């Protein structure tokens, strides 16, 4: 959860019996990312987490891959405010069970995606080149992402991203967007935490639309298997071989 501390809003894990303090739900910390880091340090018992709709979906992606045991998590549903929904251009803002806040209407469209879709490929490329040139390789987009969970990050492999390349080039964000294509739950944390304010959520939304068009798949469903892990006939494949 988040609470007021030192005049700021801080993430906090409270044990049973501890004073909760003043809870704040207006600042969207990515609690699932924080949960992932501390999960192994809390070996027993249940953990309650304030979950927005996107957090719920992130949890689904994590539990599906056995990173987190669903039975240990208690979800406290938070319905996002109108302002927050507008900021995230969120098309799916209401959690399955609302404990805090009032459900609000989704914002179904992202203006920038629509503008980019109308551009010629040359102009679109120019737009993204300009944006990616601002990248200063802080890795905030992976660091803060709730569904970035690989042990070895492909973006830290020298073959794909040479060391000390600043900016890391066009392929950095393209590779990342491919990697997230069957996991991204559009929480927007990458965009919020980008110091250069690259519209990463817009890029994610554009590719989520493509994923839905090509395979009818939307990440965040605890039961659905990613089409990248099935055969053309839809049978589930074993995990990918790391050797090749």
């Amino acid at each position: 959860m988040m609470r007021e501390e030192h005049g700021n809003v801080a993430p906090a894990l409270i044990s049973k019996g501890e004073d909760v303090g003043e809870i704040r739900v207006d600042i969207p910390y990515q609690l699932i990312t924080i949960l992932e880091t501390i999960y192994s340090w809390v070996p027993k018992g249940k953990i309650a987490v304030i979950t927005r709709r996107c957090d719920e979906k992130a949890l689904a992606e994590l539990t599906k891959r056995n990173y987190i045991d669903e039975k240990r998590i208690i979800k406290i549903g938070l319905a996002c405010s109108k302002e927050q929904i507008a900021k995230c251009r969120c098309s799916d803002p209401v959690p399955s069970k609302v404990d805090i806040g009032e459900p609000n209407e989704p914002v179904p469209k992202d203006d920038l995606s629509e503008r980019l879709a109308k551009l010629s490929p040359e102009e679109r490329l120019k737009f993204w080149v300009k944006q990616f040139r601002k990248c200063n390789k802080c890795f905030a987009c992976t660091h803060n992402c709730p569904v970035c969970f690989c042990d070895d990050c492909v973006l830290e492999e020298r073959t794909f991203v040479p060391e000390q390349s600043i900016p890391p080039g066009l392929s950095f964000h393209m590779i990342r967007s491919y990697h997230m294509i069957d996991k991204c739950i559009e929480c927007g944390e990458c965009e919020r935490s980008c110091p250069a304010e690259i519209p990463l959520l817009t890029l994610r939304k554009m590719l989520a639309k493509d994923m839905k068009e090509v395979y009818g798949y939307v990440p965040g469903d605890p039961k659905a298997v990613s089409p990248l892990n099935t055969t053309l006939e839809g049978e589930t494949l074993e995990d990918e071989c790391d050797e090749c």
Partner: protein
Amino acid sequence: MSVKHVLTTCPYCGTGCNFFLQVADGRLVGVVPCKTDEISLGRLCIKGYNAHAFVQHPDRLKHPMIREGGQLKQVTWEQAMDRIVKEVTRIREKFGPDSIAVLASAKCTNEENYLIQKLARAALGTNNVDHCARLCHASTVSGLLYSFGSGAMTNTIPEFDNAECILITGSNTLEAHPMIGARMLRALDKGAKIIVVDPRETPLSRISHLSLHQRPGTDISWINGMIKIIIDEGLVNEEFVKQRTTAFDELKEVVKDYTAEKVEATTGIPREKLVEAARLYAKTEKAMIAYAMGITQHSNGTNLVKAMANLAMVTGHIGKESTGLNPLRGQCNVQGACDAGGLPNLFPGYQRVDDPESKAKFEKAWGVQLPGNPGLTLTCAMKEAMAGKLKAMIIFGENVMISDPDLGHLEEAIEELEFLAVVDIFPTETAQKAHVVLPAGCYAEKDGTFTSTDRAIRLLRKAVDPPGEARADWVIACDLGKRLGSPGFDFSSPAEVMAEMASLTPQYAGIDFGRIDKQVLRWPCPTKEHQGTRILHTQKFTKGLGVFAPVEHAPPMEEPSEEYPFILTTGRNLFQYHTGTMTRRSPKLEREAPEPYVEINGSDAKRLGINDGERVAVSSKRGSITLKARVTDRIILGSIFIPFHYAEAAANRLTNAALDPISNIPELKVCAAKVAKA
């Protein structure tokens, strides 16, 4: 099981970003940005995200050590402190207090720096106290004290967001101050014009409006050239100059010789580009200047800073929102270490040691007699050590064996010392030379304050205990003070130290831990009700009228010759920090920039038959190092660049220790060098 998130301040550059350290059962497991922090805005750079990585590294110093038979041996605190007191007392009695020097640290807190300078002045009786600001912004302090009366950033970091024109010189902002660079990017997105003047292409200059490449060491020439263009084209802010400044006629007289042709010949900057830059800067209302080591680290660094001040005053771009002259300070607390009096000529709050009134004030407060003569600067202390006049040094958290110029001679000087005590967190190259080594606590292990580059006083909050027997520097300084028999070292917390410092430092008078726990206050903050000062010099300059200094271009102390045809310049990269003691022990940072390299222009490399990635020897009159060549078009012809982070090929083996006569800053940015295949 316990998990907590501790809000604290980043230990890297001087931006002062706050973030949460994640602590699980006493282990630091990660960093979470603080979304409501007004400086970082919930964003961090790669160093910030890895700021937890070195803290619990196995290399940390955990026990005091004494050198015996050439080896450092583990001892008790009692034994180590006894040895320091015994040696220091002996040397002081035999050679006098001025045979001892103390180095404060820009990595220590304000409270610690306050105690360290008090230790030198009150307990040892010498003003020989200095720190690494001598190597970075000493010329800013002296130059801006002359021009404005205050040597700090005139405006604040958030103001970069709304600037309409930003002139950046001698600063690789996106790499050295990434979160300030990010604000410049935001200004750029909003349509601001960015002008970068640098011998290298930097990540920022590649996306700026105007990228000007000057020959290293020719800055006064282009600055004076710009001022002349501004005067000739009638772009001077006449009203500002008339009401707020003095000595404009002298400046006019000097710059009239800096014709665009002459400037082009000296600097290599095409005249039409300089004219464009001058017009852009002068005509834009919200125009900011940011500069760093590229301006200060010259043998005429003070004059260079004065030239920058002239430029800001001529156009009246000072004392208003999103304008001003903004030195970017490189260490987390280099501003604070200066504020707290870690300087040989100044008490806390820039009060002169040779001013009888100030001296009397501190004597009364501390209850001791104080020396009235300014002490030795860091750079002079090394020269005195070499000459055998300085006998002992106590160094807190500095790695002079990598950071200082002309390491060959420095090493000899350090070896000349009869006694050297080093307080640090890792076994640095300097600690290897010490007679006594004391293990200190790092930023995550103590309370205290850092003052960021824009004068904001930011709290550190203790997240974990120091490793082994290590103790926070403030505890060590208090203990030493008491053992040396001095009064005034009885403190039980950093908050108490700040209370004393605030009572003696006018700029900090309104600061206490309770207030800054909840809000960002920038000095001057003269009373407990005062809300701090964002913009300096709004109504008048700190010294009254701003003073134009007529300064002339002078060539660097060492120019390329037939034998040493290249100009060597040094600097940082994004992933490493200073002498690498912390970043090189952070796996993700070390992965990005694991080895030293020299950047050389493609045409120069071709002429010398050097391929990208090949090993080369780079030499100057003072030494030689071997490292990898990075062939690039991002540096101008005839210049080479080496980052100074790497002990295995320390750029400072080559650099020139020639000093600026006013500030004693060494000319780290220019020396003559040659390159050959290794």
